[in-house]
């Protein structure tokens, strides 16, 4: 309820001219108009825009320049704002490395990049990172968090590993995004073995939630507000939400047993209803609900509700009641991913833009639609149509955004509502990125488990009880967040500070004492380095991906003098760098 009220309030504010000054006037006018017209759009679909001719594909560099122009035009007010300088090479290599492959560049990589004199070295770096297999893994983990963060059942975690694997391969092989989305919508099978099941299984067979997540994640449309009531400021009606749900009534998740063993869970579907259900499903009462979707009667939850026909709210395309499961899901997958549905491409390009630049053109990044504000609609449209022209190639998308001038600039704190954005903003690292940089900074191949986990060995594929015992998963439990949440609202907590300051596992990684029989990474560094200064520089490169400034060097030197015991002093410096604010962000 309060969500609705705030939305109304927002529109009112905008209507009376209090909109942030950098919002394009066109968008404001459209917003106000849609408010006026809300009575007349009872059955309107979302494709009220005129259909466009398919775009001619343009290469990443040319597309990036066009995006620069469009963005400068849409963020006109930027002319009056101080120009933001290009980011230093050291900042750029760390940023691109975190963004593309989810980890810090090594000291050697940084040095080589800084020494490289070629004018296109940034583009070459991006290309090299896109070719690294950890590119797919990094984004696979990102999408794993997007899909599973709002799981309605913990057992959906059975699909966590298989999902990451499936996506890592898909991203590395440039599987088109429309294919990935189709795979998600049409999946069946064992959660632990086939990651394509994850999106539907995350809602564990709850039909309305499944429809809501498909719309939110794949189209950035939060139609679920209409689950219980018509929305006063959104155009779609309650029926339209339940018509979308009617594509999914036959799916479910059930335990798998084989050879008397539990084999995890599988996403199943009842393909054909018994003949009688096909003829008069509404008369079958409860049993029919296993084959068709019924919109609940709000005044009488116990009543049968209204039988819903599968209709796709964006285009109004429909299937008759009674179709087999596979036909429903294949059909809605085709409609969702069709170029005629602008929200499919917009949702994913807006999301990648937000991840790489630090701010979405629509925010929250999973709440788009014709009744929402876009700060740069033409820029977003261009990016979306080019993405389609490039056959939904995510690598092209990442390459293009990483080639824009805004991506190459210094980052600044997020602008307030009445300030003009002219550059990206720093992003807090996701748990996986932070975990990677910790293992790199401490020179460990992996961190030992952060704590003992109880429970049996865990048998079935993907059993989260087993997976949860890995140090990475334990770390994720403390530092993880839903990547769809506004990133500026993600903040650290006491548990995170405790882990970084006091975790015995990390402390051993920072120690000079021998780790097992071999010398610790810090001890090796000390043995190899010529003098204090070299050690300081190496520690800074390892932890923060840059060399220390003069006054930071001075602080380090004074610390060694003050502590007297050089070994202790080095451990302290490493501890301080790992616990610094800078370590937690990519600028």
């Amino acid at each position, binding site marked *: *309820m*309060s*969500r609705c009220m*705030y939305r109304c309030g*927002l529109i009112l504010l905008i209507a009376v001219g209090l909109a942030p000054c950098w919002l394009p006037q066109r968008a404001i006018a459209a917003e106000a108009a849609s408010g006026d017209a809300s009575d007349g759009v009872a059955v309107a679909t979302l494709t009220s825009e005129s259909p466009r001719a398919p775009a001619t594909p343009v290469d990443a560099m040319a597309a990036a320049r066009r995006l620069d122009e469009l963005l400068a035009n849409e963020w006109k007010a930027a002319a009056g704002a101080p120009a933001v300088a290009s980011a230093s090479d050291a900042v750029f290599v760390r940023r691109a490395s975190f963004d593309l492959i989810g980890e810090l560049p090594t000291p050697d990589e940084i040095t080589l990049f800084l020494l490289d004199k070629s004018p296109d070295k940034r583009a070459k770096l991006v290309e090299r990172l896109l070719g690294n297999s950890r590119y797919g893994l990094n984004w696979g983990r990102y999408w794993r968090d997007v899909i599973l963060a*709002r799981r*309605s059942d*913990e057992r959906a975690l059975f699909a966590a590993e298989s999902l990451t694997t499936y996506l890592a391969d898909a991203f590395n092989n440039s599987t088109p995004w429309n294919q990935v989305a189709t795979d998600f919508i049409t999946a069946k099978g064992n959660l632990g073995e086939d990651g394509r099941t994850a999106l539907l299984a995350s809602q564990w067979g709850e039909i309305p939630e499944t429809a809501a997540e498909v719309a939110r994640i794949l189209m950035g449309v*939060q139609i679920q507000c209409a689950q*219980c009531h018509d929305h006063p400021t959104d155009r779609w009606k309650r029926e339209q939400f339940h018509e979308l749900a009617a594509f999914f009534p036959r799916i479910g998740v059930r335990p798998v047993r084989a050879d008397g063993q539990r084999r995890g869970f599988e996403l199943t579907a009842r393909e054909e209803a018994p003949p009688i259900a096909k003829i008069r499903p509404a008369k079958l009462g*409860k049993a029919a609900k296993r084959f068709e979707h019924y919109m609940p009667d709000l005044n009488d*939850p*116990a009543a049968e509700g209204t039988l819903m026909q599968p209709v796709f709210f964006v285009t109004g395309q429909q299937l008759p009641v009674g179709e087999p499961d596979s036909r429903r899901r294949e059909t809605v997958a085709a409609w969702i991913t069709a170029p005629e549905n602008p929200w499919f491409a917009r949702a994913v390009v807006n999301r990648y833009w937000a991840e790489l630049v630090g701010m979405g053109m629509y925010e*929250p990044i999973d*709440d788009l639609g014709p009744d929402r504000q876009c700060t740069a609609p033409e820029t977003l449209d261009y990016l979306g149509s080019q993405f389609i022209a490039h056959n939904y190639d995510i690598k092209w998308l990442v390459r293009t955004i990483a080639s824009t001038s805004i991506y190459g600039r*210094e980052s*600044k*704190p997020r602008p*307030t*509502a009445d300030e003009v954005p002219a550059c990206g903003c720093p992003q807090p690292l996701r748990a996986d990125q932070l975990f990677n940089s910790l293992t790199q900074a401490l020179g460990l191949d992996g961190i030992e488990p*952060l*704590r003992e986990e109880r429970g049996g060995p865990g048998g079935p594929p993907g059993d989260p009880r087993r997976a949860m015992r890995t140090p990475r998963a334990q770390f994720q*439990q*403390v530092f993880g*967040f*839903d990547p769809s949440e506004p990133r500026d*609202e993600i*903040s*650290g*907590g*006491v*548990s995170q*500070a*405790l*882990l970084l*300051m*006091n*975790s*015995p596992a990390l*402390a051993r990684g920072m120690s000079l004492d021998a780790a097992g029989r071999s010398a610790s990474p810090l001890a090796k560094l000390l043995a190899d380095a010529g003098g204090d200064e070299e050690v300081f520089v190496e520690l800074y490169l390892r932890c923060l991906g840059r060399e220390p*400034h003069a*006054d*930071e060097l001075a*602080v*380090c030197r004074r*610390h060694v003098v003050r*502590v007297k015991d050089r070994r*202790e002093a080095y451990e*302290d*410096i490493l*501890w*301080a*760098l790992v*616990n*610094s*604010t*800078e370590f*937690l*962000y990519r*600028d």
Partner: protein
Amino acid sequence: MFSFHRQTRVTVNRQGVVGRRDFLKCVSASALAAGTVTWTDLVAASADDLRRRGRACILLWMQGGPSQFETLDPKPGHANGGATEAIDTTVSGIRIAANFPNLAKQMKHAAILRSLTSKEGNHQRATFLMHTGYAPTASVKHPALGSIVARELGRPECELPAFVRIGGDIRQRNSGNGGFLGVEYDPFAIREAGKLPENAAPTTEVTRYRRRLDLLEKLEADYAKGDGSQRVVDHRKLYEKTSRMILSKDMRAFDLEREPAAVREAYGSTPFASGCLLARRLVESGVPFVEVQLNGWDTHDNNFDRVKQLSGQVDQPVANLLADLDARGILERTLVIWMGEFGRTPKINPRNGRDHYPRAFSALLAGGGVRGGQVVGSTTAGGDEVAERPILVTDFFQTLCRSLEIDPAKENMTPIGRPIKIVDGGQPVSELFG
């Protein structure tokens, strides 16, 4: 009046003791030191403040939505009631489900609300609603009640976190956090009661630990000068707060081994029971809000066996918590809430389960000025509807504020300057008090 707020803070001991003797003892020291106020001035002006400072809340959160039919609102004899029987309690006329024999004996301390009603039937949304008093929105991140209490009742001299959450799924973020109040009001989450929280002790001796913190601050000076300044300020705040906590002697409160064996036995041996005992120890140490979570109430199938099993984990510890708080004289200042995000359907589904039902459900309140031994509101014979005295979620939160002596109309500012009331609308259930 404002001027000696400070002094009362200094003089209140860690327990925020309200006892008259302690109070006078405290006042004598501070008044002598201040030399400015008269006895009567000080007593009159500080009494409210002092009493308020002692207030605390223990939320026993039943994640998944406990069935009211098998807990606080049984319907024996009606088809919707299933096989669940009702038993008498020590308060005549009040009957609860047979799953709670121990709680039945403590009925004089507790009030049952049987007419809660909401519209949120989705776990995540309802969990957020019942933790914050607001439905989730994309635009405003409302703080959890625990965060509000931490802000309103937290005492600066207390070195423990003001909002502790025990058990449940630590990845579960629907239970709310500091929201727009900021990270310093986030809950301190611990996985299980019984030992020191993870990583709560420095890995070096204390002098070296302090030396490291000092070095960290110096090394961050450069970064703090640039665009990272706000982030560095937030980060420092977090590290200072965390350091104060882990170096505090009060951390012993987390160690249940310090509790006599008989007391531990009285609570029981399940993780939830240890959570209840820890909650009492933390409240005694000055923590104003403790939440203990128990998962598993989402009984879409096999409802009756599962609720019986869950109730078995809950009955003795909750009953004992009320008795223990009472015996220690702190029940009067400690509000205990037992609830989940919604109730369950009157109709029993084909899998012998019950589904989500926010339209009419129950909760239990005890202590914190709530008069025990009463039932407020009722449902129809089949439990489908609220029959008398519907209690909206806003009414419920008004009630909690009344008990905790927090002004529900107080407005907190979001980062973009939008004022948000602690509770927006509603009326307290006044018959619960006095």
